[in-house]
């Protein structure tokens, strides 16, 4: 047999990046998970038998939302600087991202403290409490995971362990962070703008 | 084969113990039956054609001993053939969809007359509470309804309002209608329209815990006159106990925790966790169909319900033998 006959003519054989495909799959999975919690929230809007009701206790978290959305921009800028090789500015913008994310988590903690101790709304108070804490809590836990990932990057960088070969790793963490932001768009709209009518 | 129903209202009626869905005796069951037969026939034809084709291929194209080792012609596919066997299933599907949606509408959106008999059935672990709001009657496990007619003018359908007190149950008497679930916090409706008298058997059809298997149902369909007689009897006051044993039994009934769970007529016994006992002895069975209601079974039940129906929610009341007999004697006056 002539092996030439079996030779493939298209010599450049390109396949997608493992990390990107993996991250896209993870994001699809997470979206499916969030969808169910969102549906549960919608399903139970206005179905609580007793208060407190959303319109009595929820306030639009303008500042925290701006912080979280802003962190999507700062992480992009930080990435640009990493790409250009400007470590100092990369650190500044990356730390700013972490700070904005941390503020968001702080806000959620403060909000929950207020709801639990001042408004007497716990996860077992009514169906609003159950769906609210589950949905917002699921999102907040993702923010926390994101913060851990962001911190690992900046710590590695400070210890000199972040080399140009890691740029795709960093990009994936940024993707994850954008995803967490995008989820907040949904949660914010649903919980703080729509459900407060009930 | 028929079960033992020596006593109880409607015991003399023919029993339809084999609940064959292909022998419907009520209008909704019959509508379902017609659709089902059509679907069965379509499926049978498909089965014969495809299985026949498979068999033909297996016989015709098997490798014969005389075959040479050459490979058969390599065919990669054919758009036309594949199109053909895409279009045919689509056509069959369209037929099925039309038939299905029509029957759904006929059964589910049927208009019942304003004065249709209404019965509220509440599922409990593991028995059925049965209310007749138009008559103010409460009973359990055995549903009495008047026979209807095939003649639309004389038809007298019955509406069932289905609710649950705990977990999900499902009301299923195959010869009368398809099943409908009883779901806590929701109200479902279904209707039956039987045109033959008799006792119809059914079950709870949604798994609901330990004794799901013994959550049995009987629907007793009788002539309108007999139904009215049954109603009158259910509404009539219970005669007071006569013998000393019966009187002692009543005292024990009220002295023990029985009253917490059971209701007896207009007395202080107003419990709602267990079946209403006002007209207990007019029923054919005990424990939601677990056994025929007779003296021995009632004695056994009062002594320890866990013997006949292990896991049921009525506890063993730790009564002495004479107390068991007295309470049983009292209960036997409830008719």
């Amino acid at each position: 047999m002539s092996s030439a006959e079996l030779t493939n003519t298209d010599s450049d054989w390109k396949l997608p990046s493992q990390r990107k495909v993996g991250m896209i799959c993870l994001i699809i999975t997470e979206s499916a998970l969030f969808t169910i919690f969102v549906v549960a929230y919608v399903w139970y809007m206005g179905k609580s038998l007793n208060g407190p009701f959303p319109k009595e206790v929820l306030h639009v978290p303008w500042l925290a939302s701006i912080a979280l959305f802003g962190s999507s921009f700062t992480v992009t800028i930080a990435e640009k600087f990493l790409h250009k090789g400007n470590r100092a500015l990369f650190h500044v913008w990356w730390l700013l991202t972490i700070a904005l994310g941390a503020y968001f988590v702080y806000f959620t903690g403060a909000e929950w403290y207020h709801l639990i101790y001042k408004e007497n709304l716990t996860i077992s108070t009514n169906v609003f409490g159950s769906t609210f804490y589950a949905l917002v809590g699921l999102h907040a836990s993702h923010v926390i995971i994101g913060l851990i990932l962001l911190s690992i990057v900046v710590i590695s960088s400070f210890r000199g362990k972040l080399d140009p070969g890691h740029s795709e790793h960093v990009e994936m963490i940024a993707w994850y962070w954008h995803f967490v932001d995008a989820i907040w768009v949904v949660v914010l709209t649903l919980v703080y703008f729509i459900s407060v009518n009930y | 084969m028929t079960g033992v129903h020596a006593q109880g209202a409607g015991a003399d009626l023919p029993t339809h113990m084999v609940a064959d869905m292909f022998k419907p005796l009520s209008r909704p069951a019959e509508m379902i039956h017609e659709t089902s037969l059509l679907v069965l026939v379509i499926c049978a034809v498909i089965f014969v054609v495809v299985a026949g084709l498979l068999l033909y291929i297996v016989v015709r194209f098997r490798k014969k001993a005389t075959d040479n080792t050459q490979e058969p012609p390599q065919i990669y596919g054919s758009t036309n053939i594949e199109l053909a066997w895409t279009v045919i299933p689509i056509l069959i599907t369209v037929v099925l969809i039309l038939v299905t949606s029509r029957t759904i509408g006929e059964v589910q959106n049927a208009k019942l007359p304003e004065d249709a008999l209404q019965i509220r059935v509440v599922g409990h672990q593991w028995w059925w509470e049965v209310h007749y709001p138009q008559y103010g009657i409460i009973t359990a496990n055995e549903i009495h309804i008047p026979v209807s007619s095939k003649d639309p003018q004389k038809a007298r359908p019955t509406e069932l309002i289905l609710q649950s007190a705990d977990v999900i149950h499902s009301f299923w008497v195959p010869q009368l209608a398809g099943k409908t679930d009883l779901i806590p916090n929701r109200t479902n409706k279904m209707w039956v329209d039987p045109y033959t008298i008799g006792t119809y058997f059914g079950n709870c059809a949604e798994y609901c815990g330990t004794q799901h298997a013994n959550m049995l149902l009987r629907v007793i369909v009788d002539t309108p006159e007999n139904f009215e007689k049954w109603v009158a009897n259910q509404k009539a006051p219970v005669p007071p106990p006569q013998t000393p044993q019966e009187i002692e039994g009543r005292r024990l009934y009220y002295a023990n925790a029985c009253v917490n769970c059971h209701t007896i007529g207009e007395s202080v016994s107003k419990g709602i966790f267990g079946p209403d006992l006002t007209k207990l002895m007019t029923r054919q069975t005990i424990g939601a169909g677990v056994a025929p209601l007779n003296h021995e079974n009632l004695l056994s039940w009062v002594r320890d319900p866990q013997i006949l129906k292990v896991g049921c929610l009525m506890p063993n009341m730790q009564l002495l033998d004479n107390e068991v007999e007295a309470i049983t004697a009292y209960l036997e006056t409830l008719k």
Partner: protein
Amino acid sequence: MASETIVDPDFKVPAPERVGEEGKTWSHVIQNLVFTVDHKKLGLMYIGSGLLFFVVAGIMATLIRVQLFFPRSTFLDPDVFNRFFTMHGTAMVFLVGMPMIFGFANYLIPIMIGTRDMAYPRLNAFGFWVFFFSGLLLYFSYFGAPGLYNAGSAPDVGWFAYSPLTAKAFSRGHSTDYWTLSILLGGIGSLATSINILVTTFCLRCKGMTLGRMPLFVWLFVVVAFLVIIALPPLSACQIMLTLDRYLGAKFFDTQAGGDAVLWQHFFWIFGHPEVYILILPGFAIANEIIPVFSRKPIFGYPIMVAATVMIAFISLGVWAHHMFTVGMTSLGNTFFAISTMVIAVPTGIKIFNWLGTMWGGKLHFELPMIFCLAFLFQFLIAGLTGVMLSVVPFDWQLSDSYFVVAHFHYVLIGALLYTLFAGIYYWYPKAFGRMPNRKLGLWHFWLFTIGFHLTFFPQHISGFLGMPRRIFTYEAGRGWEIWNQLSTIGVIIQIPGILFFVFNLIYSYFKGEEAGDDPWDAWTLEWATTSPPPEYNFEKTPEVRSRRPLWDLKHPDDPDWKFE
């Protein structure tokens, strides 16, 4: 320019060095199993542990059938019976079906696409061990679940665990918690494996292996993995909600506090129906490999087979409420879900016809794998048609939750899935162990199991028609169910020796089987281009392909496939 390929017939892959095999003590074996990240070992471990759980869950089913032999039988207590059917169902779906299909995926996908391992070998091992321990956790409930008040033991809420039966008020103790946690854990393993499958197939195909040239087996597993990552999170979500309900007093499914019992059903079946396709598509995948080889023809209509699979997967996401025709949906809702369900019959029909088209004009070799595939076609036809009956809403009002449904899904899961798994095991056994499975033992297995299977499950259609609900531990005499239950139980007694023949065959052939060689079936996909068993790195040099049947091209240089595709 790479002009060499691994499929050069003169080239022999050198015998692989078996690391860690010199001192074959038990501790070495165990160490090897625990530390391995080799996709082939993990694949075999998946299949092995799946078979182990299969035997346990099968014993439970046997005891269930014994209890139902006589009316009013007192062989089992109701609680014991309820635990058995719950554990049987849960185990068969999550601890047998899922690991078996992942086992096949793990073993075969990297070899079929000509690469050396999965994309994330350690994640792969993680997925296996998470699954394995989730299974142990579930069975541990028999010992651990009594909890503080000694109430409950193994879960007894049924495999779909309808709320509010799972609420604290109706399910005391911790049996339901074991069920929930085990499924949550198993779900994580399945997600990890599925993401791994997707990344592997998208990013590690060998040169020339375009999407259009992947074996159909791989294509179907891509679809399955997609279904898993979309459909499993709803299951995890509702398990999380149930856990919150049970531990923190949340009200998701608390009907006393305005919660909705039907919500659980929606969430569960949004997972549960795609799950049926997650389980059956791998069966199709195996049939797609075996039927062409033993018909000596390429698969008929490759592109439309792919399209039909994608369509089935897509539609399957919109049919979940056909499990809920009796909950009192509006007639509009009922009609919608009836239509979406019936539409699935079209791509499924295409598949059956394309298999028939593959066999048409071929030369059928009735080797063990092919025999099981033919039985699969026949039984899947029955399962599909009873499925059509169930999609007809009014018919379903009668049949739902009856023994007819039990018969239907056992025809799907045993008659279709398990038969293709048997076929797959016999087909790839020589590849994995280098020896042929014994044909005579295999035929005994086939006939005993097939007769037993039909005798067990065909009568259940009829007892369903006669009004017998599922999940009842006993029934009264005179309802017309006795004879059908007795036939059913006798069927199980016939199936058991069939399974024993199968297990014996696996062990016997491992030691005494005929030497298989690299390509005993004269097949066409890449796994047959390497040694049997394959070396740890699969291929000395990663191969390069030009068509869907690289080994056909090699064996028939005068008539290669790539000229026609």
